[in-house]
């Protein structure tokens, strides 16, 4: 008893000393400078963007110039561009210092950033009417527990790209590619005809890209990541069927085995070089495939909504990104002004060559559709139904676990059932924490 008390005393002493150390040196353990501030709606704001295939750096610079001109120089914007790979960590490391006011976030981060107090709730700024005017698929992009933490920069999903010449050579038509069964049948013909050794390429490297491909197939097999209690359930019949299907395409020699090292760009390159006939990829890929300087199939690139699975479902994975205001920004009102301008119907339509708009009305305007007819033709269907990756605060941990286990199955180290059982067990243990 006495020893226990002593130990407790010791422990509280250590804690006390440590806490005293903290108060001396700042307000939190990490040394963060405390909360944000609305600011007076003017001044300079810092925005963190991504080097990407959609909105280019030049696009952003033009948008900023127009924005500054429109508000008469009251608000100036200082943009920074980093690679997608560096974006998450940049947002995290800069958070305590409040370096950035506006940050571009991926659809998988709102739960994490919101629950950890890195991005601000925009509920009072987001106009309620806008909800009806936006595409229904894009609204959940930056929502977490019924609150809005960001405005989507446009819808984005993976579409099915194909080589028109290759399928014509084996006498197939785009109608044959409406279902995954049809895709495999066509792929087999292409392989037999010796047109392509491996007709399908995927982005199955250990990365988020793998989860996106799996998500889309999971949807096609009528599965879901989580149940209503938020627990991972991909080891059920649908989840396993989707993974078995993936593995089978490798075993049958239809999928390029190097897919387990590919990211999206590698898939796009394999298509552009005419090495492969099919590939799932983001909607912004069309621009590269049609560019004769980097593509040998510029005239033969075709695109469809993702094929249907056995269930008849064909949801696209929601791959949108969103602009958020950081919780530690000292100029949140000005930051919002800028986001509001960037995501307006007018601005989005002006840059429709770079990214699809999020407003329903834009899809009715012929002058907008004309800019990118192939993608517009399939995108309404693709955006109508979407599958979300689990919206949990520790998503990146869960995602890492799933990536590793999916790869274990694809590389033949575990059966799909074993791999997914292990993934579910490990992920749910993380989710309970």
């Amino acid at each position, binding site marked *: 008893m006495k020893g226990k008390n002593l130990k407790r005393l010791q422990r509280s002493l250590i804690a006390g000393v440590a806490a005293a150390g903290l108060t001396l040196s700042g307000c939190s353990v990490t040394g963060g400078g405390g909360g944000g501030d609305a600011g007076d709606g003017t001044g300079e704001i810092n925005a963190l963007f991504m080097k990407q295939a959609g909105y280019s750096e030049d696009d952003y610079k033009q948008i900023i110039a127009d924005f500054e001109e429109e508000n008469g120089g009251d608000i100036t914007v200082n943009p*920074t561009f980093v690679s997608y*790979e560096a974006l998450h960590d940049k947002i995290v490391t800069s958070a305590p210092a409040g370096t950035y006011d506006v940050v571009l976030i991926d659809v998988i981060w709102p739960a994490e950033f919101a629950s950890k107090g890195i991005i601000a709730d925009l509920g009072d700024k987001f106009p309620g009417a806008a909800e009806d005017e936006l595409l229904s698929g894009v609204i959940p992009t930056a929502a977490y527990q019924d609150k809005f933490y960001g405005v989507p920069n446009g819808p984005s999903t993976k579409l099915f790209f194909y080589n028109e010449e290759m399928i014509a050579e084996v006498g197939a038509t785009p109608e044959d590619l409406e279902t995954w069964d049809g895709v495999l049948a066509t792929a087999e013909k292409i392989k037999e005809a010796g047109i392509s050794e491996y007709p399908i390429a995927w982005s199955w490297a250990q990365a988020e890209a793998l989860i996106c491909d799996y998500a889309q197939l999971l949807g096609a097999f009528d599965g879901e990541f989580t149940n209503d209690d938020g627990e991972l359930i991909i080891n059920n019949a649908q989840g396993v069927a989707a993974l078995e299907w993936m593995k089978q395409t490798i075993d049958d020699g239809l999928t390029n085995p190097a897919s387990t090292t590919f990211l999206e760009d590698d898939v796009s390159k394999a298509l*552009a070089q005419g090495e492969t006939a099919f590939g799932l990829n983001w909607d912004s890929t069309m621009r590269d495939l049609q560019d004769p300087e980097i593509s040998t199939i510029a005239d033969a690139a075709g695109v469809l909504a993702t094929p249907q699975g056995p269930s008849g479902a064909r949801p696209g994975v929601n791959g949108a990104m969103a602009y958020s205001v950081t919780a530690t920004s000292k100029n949140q009102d000005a930051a919002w002004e800028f986001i509001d301008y960037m995501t307006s119907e007018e601005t989005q339509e002006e840059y429709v060559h770079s990214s699809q708009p999020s407003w329903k009305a834009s899809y009715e305007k012929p002058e907008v559709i004309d800019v990118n007819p192939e993608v517009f033709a399939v995108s309404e269907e693709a955006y109508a139904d979407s599958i979300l990756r689990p919206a949990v605060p520790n998503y990146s941990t869960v995602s890492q676990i799933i990536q590793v286990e999916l790869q274990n199955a694809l590389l033949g180290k575990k059966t799909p059932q074993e791999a997914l059982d292990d993934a579910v067990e490990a992920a749910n243990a993380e989710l309970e924490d």
Partner: protein
Amino acid sequence: MKQHHNRRILGQALTYLAALIVAVGCIAPLGWLAIASISTQADIVAKPMRWWPSELHLDRYQEILFDPTSSVGASFRAAFMNSLVVGVATVVISMVVGIFGAYAFARLKFPFRRGFLVLFLTTYMLPQISLLIPLYMILNSLGMLDTTIGLILVDCSLVIPFTLWILSNYFMTVPADLEDAARIDGTSRLGALFRIILPSAKPGLFAAVMFAFLLAWDEFMYALIFTSSDASKTIPVAISEFAGRYTTDFGLVATGGVIAAIPPLVIALIFQRQIVSGLAAGAVKG
């Protein structure tokens, strides 16, 4: 006797063969990179592999080095200049600081001299990750985030232990008699350092300069986290972004890589004659 002779010739032949293999092993990967940088995309991905490009394709060099309208090129050129500024400043500061400190370690008697030097070297064992977030906060409160000055500051903390170590070991090998003679003639300690020790420690100085520059040019993690714009982003960060975004064209990654490797390669080639003797005299004796 004849057998002995034959064996020697065989030995010679094997030595030259080994030299040839080593030379090829050192050059081949770099050569492939250089060839990729001047090949068209079609040549790079050609199957079977092309040993030589079908046409000389210098567009990427043109874009990266000279094209004023290319944002890729502008970013790369900015990063190159930033790396030069950071590299040169880090070398100068680390050398000056290192020379003074190394003199103290090599020539002066003070308590815990040995332990102190070891303490400096121990800092090299720290994983950089363990310092990232608090350092970010410090640089932020000093307004040094995303500046080359901030980067120079943190890079010096990495490089100085090295220059201290190489230089102090070298200074110890300079005979004390020379300095003593000068001191008797009335030269001060610092005078002796500049007039006697430095001139006879040239190989050590060159070795230290080379180490310092290569370390600073190579540094990645601090630059990745502490820089973000063209104002301070360095070459390694720029290349890693290339590799992320432009994997569709490996040639561009190769071009960036070749240009990024040129300054350290030049330095290494200039100083390689000195470095062996610079290290031999002191450093490797610990």
